[in-house]
């Protein structure tokens, strides 16, 4: 999977590394700001009130 990704990326190795870093940042942003907040509402129940 990752080997194939490496092969399809263009340019010399440092350009590929740069593209991969940008891709990783985009994936992390999506996870932290959209996926995880949604998962959190399902996985972590919390009750802070009495009554």
């Amino acid at each position, binding site marked *: 999977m990752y080997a194939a990704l490496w092969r399809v990326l263009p340019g010399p190795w440092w350009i590929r590394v740069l593209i991969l870093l940008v891709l990783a940042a985009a994936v992390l942003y999506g996870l932290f700001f959209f996926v995880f907040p949604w998962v959190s509402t399902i996985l972590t129940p*919390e009750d*802070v*009130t*009495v009554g």
Partner: protein
Amino acid sequence: MPDTPPAPPARRQSDRRRRPASALGVVGVLGEILVTLGVVVLLYVAYQLWIGDAIIGSQRQAEAQEITQQWAAEQPAPTATPGPDATGEPVTAEPVVTPEVGDAEIFATLHVPRFGEDWVFPVAEGVSKTRVLDPIGIGHYPGTAMPGAMGNVALAAHRYTHGAPFENLPSLQIGDAVVIETVDGWYTYRFRNMEYVRPDEVAVLEPVPQKVGAAPDGRYLTLTTCSPMWSTAERIAAYAVFESFTPRAAGEPASLTLAGEA
């Protein structure tokens, strides 16, 4: 039987040629996917423990700062007597009773210098998770006193997730300032004690906390959140008693800073 001896080498040879392309390739990709999923799960744990509350908490605090600045702009403090007056005594006044507001309406911000001098969260009416506690921050129990009124102002907030306003509630020390800010000014309460109660103990919300049916004899503040951390088994009730009201015209009270602590 005579056929078998030449067969194994043939199979082995074909295996050697085939495996990297198909069998090993499939297993390899599967492994990569599993490792990736494992990393995502670990990232989620980090999100839940630290990163998420840092992100959401700072968003909520920025919102509260904005509200505070808006109030300051609406009623600018006169430059003549900022802080203590000529006698050196802090300016206080008879507390203004905050008017009741509709559900999910933000009417105050809460400052707790013990949690950080810049620590400030918005306070809205109601304790609905979907309308107040999750999207806004701190909720005011409907039917309990409004700031300035006799009786008990009861607030609730998350201890983890959604910005976790009351994450450090157990770190309060006796005498710590808990300040409710409204458009009228600052209501300074002093932390008195903490109680760990069962989730059904509504007596902590009584006008005199834990005294069922007693007529209000003072101004109290009750903060509730869940306990222990990451559990919904119990609740913490932190009590504070009213100290003074500082009108907005008098400028920020000293209780907003840790240095202002007695």
